[in-house]
């Protein structure tokens, strides 16, 4: 097996290919490996999977979409934010204490490599062509751009203290970055590598969701207990959605994680210390429903079929499966210490 793997590695490195080419090449290599090992494993990306990064266990836990634990993948130190690559053959995971982006092969269920980043990266986004990683570097207060193929840093931009959320616009020309310390969203021109505008939002801004029409950028503000809605046309805050929820004190509402529903009509917001997630109507910006989940609900993602929302609860070390239609929690399953992000492969 060792020999086969070595030759496949050689075939990867010997031919200069595009990024996508590398991915295809790796698939072929893995196919060859599986064939020679006599495995019956199918060479397709495993479906019916939910991936959860656990900050303190240095693992990605793998579940089926009903919340049954399947396996665990050893990754890197303090895995946090995750994203799939274009064809879902790889998971990119931010390794907060390794200062790197881990590359995890979804077929083999193994971490196969990494891309060096800078001190304490937390959240990242990809260029539309999938070639560049843009990450917020907490300790240096920068946004770094890194080339996935050459594994080289392209540039960095100094931003406000404790940058966190990052979103690259669909045309790849701009990025939005939150600074938790400065209470602004930086609107960055990725071509000129300059901050175009600092948009004042609420207190401790954290994460983003772009509405399906691309016209509104929703920003969660953890300590002012609200969401700022920024117009992507003039980069101005058009609305501030205040959360007032019966039975929950304002101080306990700490919005962080957000996710767009599968039908694009609502945005889910994790209310942190309030132990609830709220479903907001995109058009009216009204709270439709709130669902009790676990402690400090941050990470969340809906199943592409739109029926289940997976919510990771950072302080109760579990994940809640929410029935989107009935607006009720179905079950909560343990996931290991400090779950951060969640991905679904239907």
């Amino acid at each position, binding site marked *: 097996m060792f020999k086969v793997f070595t030759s496949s590695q050689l075939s990867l490195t010997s031919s200069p290919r595009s990024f996508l080419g590398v991915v295809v090449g790796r698939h072929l290599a893995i196919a060859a490996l599986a064939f020679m090992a006599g495995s019956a494993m199918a060479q397709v990306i495993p479906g019916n999977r939910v991936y959860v990064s656990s900050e303190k266990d240095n693992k990605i836990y793998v579940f089926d979409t009903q919340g049954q634990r399947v396996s665990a993948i050893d990754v890197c130190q303090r895995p946090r934010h995750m994203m799939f690559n274009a064809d879902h053959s790889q998971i990119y995971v931010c390794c907060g204490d390794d200062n790197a982006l881990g590359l995890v092969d979804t077929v083999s269920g193994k971490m196969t490599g990494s891309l060096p980043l800078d001190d*304490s990266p937390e959240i990242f986004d990809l260029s539309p062509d999938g070639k560049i990683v843009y990450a917020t570097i*907490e*300790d240096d207060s920068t946004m770094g751009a890194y080339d996935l193929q050459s594994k080289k840093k392209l540039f960095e*931009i*100094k*931003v*406000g*203290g*404790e940058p966190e959320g990052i979103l690259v616009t669909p045309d790849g020309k701009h990025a939005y970055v939150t*600074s*938790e*310390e*400065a*209470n*602004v969203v930086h609107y960055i*021109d990725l071509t000129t590598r*300059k*901050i*175009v*505008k*600092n948009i*004042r939002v609420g*207190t*401790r801004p954290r994460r983003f969701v772009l509405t399906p029409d691309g016209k509104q950028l929703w920003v969660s503000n953890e*300590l*002012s*207990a609200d969401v700022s809605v920024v117009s992507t046309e003039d980069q101005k805050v058009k609305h501030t959605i205040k959360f007032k929820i019966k039975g929950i*004190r304002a*101080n*306990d509402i*700490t919005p962080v994680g957000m996710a767009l529903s599968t039908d694009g009509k609502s945005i889910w917001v994790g209310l942190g*210390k309030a132990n609830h997630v709220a479903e907001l109507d995109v058009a009216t910006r009204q709270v439709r429903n709130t669902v009790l989940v676990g402690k400090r609900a941050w990470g969340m993602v809906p199943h592409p079929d739109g029926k289940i929302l997976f919510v990771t609860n950072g302080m109760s070390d579990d994940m809640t499966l929410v029935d989107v239609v009935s607006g009720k929690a179905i079950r909560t399953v343990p996931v290991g210490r400090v779950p951060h992000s969640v991905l679904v492969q239907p």
Partner: protein
Amino acid sequence: MLSAAHRVIFCCGRAQLIGAVCASLFGGFAVTAGVACAATLQPVTVAVVSLAGDPRYAPKQLERAYPEHPAGRVLDAARMAVDDTALALQEVGVALVLRDVQLADAQALPKALAELKSARVQHIIADLPPELLRALVQQAPTVLNGAMVLNVSSDSDALRNEACSGSMLHIYPSRQMLTDSLAQYLAARNWRKVLLLQGPLPGDQLQAAAMNVSARRYGLKILQTKPFKLSGDPRDRDLFNTRLLTNERDHDVVAVMDSHGEFARILPYATQWPRPVMGSNGLMAMAWHPQWERHGGPQISRRFQKQVKRPMQSQDWASWVAVKAVAAAMGENPKAAISQQLKQLRAGELFVDGNKGPRLSFRSWDGQLRQPILIGHGDGIVGLAPLEGVLHPTEVMDTLGTDEKESKCQMRP
């Protein structure tokens, strides 16, 4: 004792001054940040007032590093906060400038205030002993035509009650908040029987008084209060021998009230029975701990360590938050008069992010910053007050310290 550098800067013309602010605050930042440091930034000076010969900062005292005693001057943390808030304030056209004022003694106060007046300073971060802090807050508002005094190191309950001031904001927790936090923790664990050891200093007595109030509030039983004394005299052995002091068997914990720290240092593991020590050593209530690992704690502790080359202490945290409170008021309305800023802050309308979880606001009745208190020991954190299960009709953080109905403070801004 104003630093020469500041005098030089303040002798400059306005344009030069603004230029200096831009250069020193933002360094290369403004250039890379793209949004230029416009020449219209209005400098707002915040004075950090302390005592030059403060015994807490004597080199030998710093070397002893008693837990919860300051580990260095609070100016360092204020400087960090000025950097942290620079970008947000730039958006409203303001740049904070720090001015280090070290008083030679209490007599130097009027002259220092006169100098602050001529520099049009109205924001003062105070790291002073209680008597001097009281003098400052009595004189400053008149001399400076209104002043905001932010207390970052005194835990005096008197300064928050009968001797309070409408111009004062207390960032550092009161002694009562600290003992309430410990009492909540003990009650939650059902460690209710307390042996209280109290030193001879006035600070020790004040700590013991606060502990007694907390014990009544949370149903702890103080079985006995015994005085201790640092001595080697065999005739005084009942007062300094840790085994003799702790030889009754019935107590669950030993609470030591030692504002100095030397006796408390030798008490853990030196008791007659295996009982935990708390108060001035062992299990302690703290505003900050460098090992606090939630809510962005590691980010500021790491940043502080990097910049100042020592771990961040409670007083440093308070100083960092003090600048952020000034920035919050400035960010809301940079043109507001100081009295209006005080009113807004004390009305609980403005919030500060202290990296301890909830957003923090000031109590209207005494100007105290309501905040979670960390319960822990030299090595780490074991709990966070208010403890889970403690209830309050409006704001659970107000279970710590003097609540509105108990407050003896009559002064409001």
